[in-house]
């Protein structure tokens, strides 16, 4: 049940998806991998939307050079653990939800345990090796995986529904080379809010997801495109035809 305070707090979005939708958000647990450029807008918007439990994982400390884009962290937070800073901000912005901020390096050994019984995984990482691990765990647990990535003024996003859509390895079988990528903070702002919107739609059963569609944002020309993406039958990650089906908006 939603409290009087919650009914008031979420009034303007209850107009969109009703108290039932709000209850679904409240009962949900979303796992966010990374508290950086993408993780900042994703976690802030999911927190204010009232997602009941948010787990956010990062292993880094706040660096001065993060502050042009990682809006969860303030100047005073430099040298603090990102998880400490994230926990403080997310609890302050919405004290009615539960935040688990975990200081850890995501690896093949711990990823399944870290994700636990979350209802969805949001990709806010900055590298493909960890993205591939998150993708595998999403497939294994049959939970959606909300992908996003950025560079400079460009970004991409897609929503992976195990058993239904192509997985991350179908779409991007090989990682691009590592680099110190250029970025202006508004770019992860655009892509992170696309990802947060996807999560909210999935949890409340609204609209059409970016399933089987790769959204591409070009901030330099202010244009967006989408590319239809297909499953690779011989994908090393999801090539198994027996993979189960996950329906948007249907929650256990």
């Amino acid at each position, binding site marked *: 049940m939603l409290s009087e305070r919650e009914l008031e707090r979420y009034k303007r979005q209850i107009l969109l998806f009703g108290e039932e939708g709000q209850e679904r958000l409240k009962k949900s647990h979303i796992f966010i991998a990374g508290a950086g450029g993408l993780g900042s807008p994703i976690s802030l918007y999911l927190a204010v939307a009232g997602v009941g439990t948010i787990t956010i994982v990062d292993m880094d400390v706040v660096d001065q050079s993060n502050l042009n884009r990682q809006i969860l962290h303030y100047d005073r937070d430099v040298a603090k653990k990102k998880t400490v800073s994230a926990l403080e901000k997310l609890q302050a912005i919405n004290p009615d939800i539960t935040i688990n901020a975990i200081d850890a390096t995501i690896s093949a050994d711990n990823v399944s345990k870290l994700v636990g019984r979350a209802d969805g995984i949001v990709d806010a990482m900055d590298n493909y090796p960890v993205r591939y691990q998150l993708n595998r765990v999403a497939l294994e647990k049959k939970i959606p995986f909300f992908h996003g990535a950025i560079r400079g003024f*460009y970004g991409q996003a897609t929503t992976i529904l195990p058993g239904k859509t192509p997985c991350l390895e179908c779409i991007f079988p090989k990682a691009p080379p590592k680099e110190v990528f250029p970025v202006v903070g508004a770019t992860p702002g655009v892509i992170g809010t696309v990802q947060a919107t996807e999560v909210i739609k999935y949890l409340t059963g609204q609209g059409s997801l970016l399933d089987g569609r790769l959204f591409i944002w070009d901030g330099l020309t202010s244009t967006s495109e989408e590319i239809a993406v297909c499953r690779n039958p011989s994908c090393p990650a999801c090539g198994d035809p027996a993979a189960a089906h996950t329906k948007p908006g249907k929650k256990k």
Partner: protein
Amino acid sequence: MSVKVRFFARFRELLGTDIITEPQAGTTLSALVLGIAQKNKEGRDAIFDEQGSFREFVILMRNGKRVETSDAGKTAVADGDEIAVFPPVAGG
């Protein structure tokens, strides 16, 4: 015949986009893209290796359908084709 080539992200910065070409019959996808990329060494090197093969992470689409870069050397383009070439972006 007329074929449009669209580059995305970093490739677009280096090579431009929406390039209309008029290749000869039998031109392969590889030859077409390499021909355009030649105009800028940095652009060429971003997409192709020293041997002129697509770098392994490059995504190639023809009329919205994925073409494996390993097949691009034996796939001829056709009139009206739209070719998209893009790199996955990795930052977060």
